[in-house]
């Protein structure tokens, strides 16, 4: 179930009346305004919307990287606005995997070591960590590149390492911010194949921000972010409710 009207109950992700304002110089920018969202476990959501509409802002808020101006975000029962410092960091390690447009691998670590990073924050033994890392690298098809450094990999391969890093600790939710934005079509498709597989086979709850309609098609639900709130796309590809409709 995915709803944007704030009327769902018991969803994995439950966002209510979310506001996010930024202050730049003297003026305030309302990026998100009264945004509601309910998403059940296992859903695959794509966010689209014009540049500057607040897609990254929304992902950051959901991942506990930023704090809302008003409103609440609950994930798996935890109200993340109530967490801070150490507990928020631990919550993030447990529930969230991030995939960025720019991969953001640590250049001085090998693929294996990059993927292992989140596990260093857990109590796993060295051999357990090794098993998890191998499994994650296998899943993205890079087991044979484990000893390569990021600069020895192509962009698509780097992004696959980043995906392995995001999933190695088995998070509840994957937040992907334009993961194919910097890649050619073929490499981008490989990435999307992996993400789709994570949704299909591993039942991950996935949020994918993209500008690419082809990428968005992979998702089960397409949400449009505009003027600070979310709009759901109808099955025929048009918005069930356009901004103009709402103004009326």
């Amino acid at each position, binding site marked *: 179930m995915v709803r944007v009207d704030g009327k769902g109950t018991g969803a994995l992700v439950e966002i209510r009346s979310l506001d996010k304002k930024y202050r730049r110089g003297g003026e305030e920018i309302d990026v998100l305004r009264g945004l509601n969202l309910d998403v059940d476990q296992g859903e695959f959501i794509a966010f689209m919307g014009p540049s500057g509409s607040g897609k990254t802002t929304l992902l950051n808020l959901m991942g506990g990287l930023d704090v809302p101006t008003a409103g609440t975000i609950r994930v798996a029962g935890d109200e993340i606005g109530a967490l801070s410092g150490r507990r928020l960091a631990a919550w993030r390690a447990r529930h*969230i995997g*991030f995939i*960025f447009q720019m991969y*953001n691998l640590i250049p*001085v670590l090998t693929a294996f070591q990059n993927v292992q990073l989140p596990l260093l924050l857990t109590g796993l033994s060295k051999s357990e960590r090794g098993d998890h890392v191998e499994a994650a690298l296998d899943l993205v098809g890079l087991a044979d590149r484990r000893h390569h450094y990021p600069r020895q990999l192509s962009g698509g391969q780097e992004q696959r390492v980043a995906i392995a890093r995001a999933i190695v600790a088995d998070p509840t939710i994957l937040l992907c911010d334009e993961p194919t934005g910097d890649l050619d079509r073929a490499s981008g498709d490989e990435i999307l194949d992996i993400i789709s597989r994570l949704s299909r086979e591993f039942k991950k709850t996935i949020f994918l921000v993209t500008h690419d309609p082809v990428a968005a098609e992979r998702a089960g639900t397409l949400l449009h972010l505009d003027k600070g709130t979310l709009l759901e796309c109808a099955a025929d590809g048009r918005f069930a409710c356009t901004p103009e409709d709402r103004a009326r």
Partner: protein
Amino acid sequence: MKFLHLVIVNLRRKKTRTALTIGSFTVALFLFGILATIKSALGSGVDVAGADRLVVRNRVSLIQPLPIAYRDQILRLPHVEEATFATWFGGYYQDMKNFFPNFAIDVPNWRRVYPEYKFSDEEWRAFAEDREGCVISPPLAKRFGWKIGDRIPLEATIWTGTWELNVRAIYETDRRELTSPELWFHYEYLDERRSFWKGFVGWYTVKIDDPASAVAAAAAIDDRFANSPYETKTETEKAFAAGFANQIGNIRLLILSIGSVVFFTLLLVTGNAMASAVRERTGELAVLKTIGMNDPTVLSLVMAEAIAVAAVGGGAGLVLAKLFTLRGDPTGGMLANFYLSPRNLALGFALALAAGAAAGILPALGAMRLRIVDALRRV
């Protein structure tokens, strides 16, 4: 500990910068080691000085003498138990650069005032009975390969001629700081042969009954000789030793200033290196936080880097300094106890680590406070 590997690879990123920062620590701690050695060599005797002994010297300056007749008068003053005297001879062996401290002592009373120098009774008796006899310290014996029975020619500097002395005794002491290369011979022999200042001594060392009466005893001595042609200044051995060292300027202050400047520079150099390291890695730090690394861990990651640099560089500098001091006194006698003590090594290492921590703390706090969203936007 699991992140040790990350600390190490981070340090290897900019090898030149890391090498230079480590190098600054090495240079600074080498310098610290040498300066600390000089400082403690200058002050040696300082720690040794029992406050139950006072040194009486000419009030005008250290190089002005006092009449030998003062001994009897000093002995009659309150709190005084014993008094002995010595005179700086300033001779050298064969060549000026072979300089080592040598002075003429009051043989009959010397051992009662300086019990810390141990002698076998036969050796001391042989020395006491030979007017041309002398005592040497183990380091001096080692330096020139001298042994009991050798005849040593000393060239005079204050007086004239070659003075031949027979090695009759080598003292022993279990206190390392007392073993500097030095030589003592009979005051009587000096006074008989010298052409001027006959009947005068360099300084008196006075043993008093109780350290608590040191101030009173000193005042009594100086009062006794006030308004005489040879007024005295009585001070603790510590002050006397320091005064000796200060003949060559206020060296301790100089050393402290140099040391402080070096450490301050070190802080700036390392602080700057760490700040750039953190700045370059803003995005990566944000990623580490994103995957759930908490603030204290981020802080310690940066601190560990700064402290590792300090430990490696500082440790190397101290090892070099120690090796340097093992070669012995580079001035050939001016700094008799040229010895880098374990205490100073430990102090140096602690200072290096503190400097590393101080240099790392601001960048580390910066890294810790870094807001993920801001950092990611900058990537």
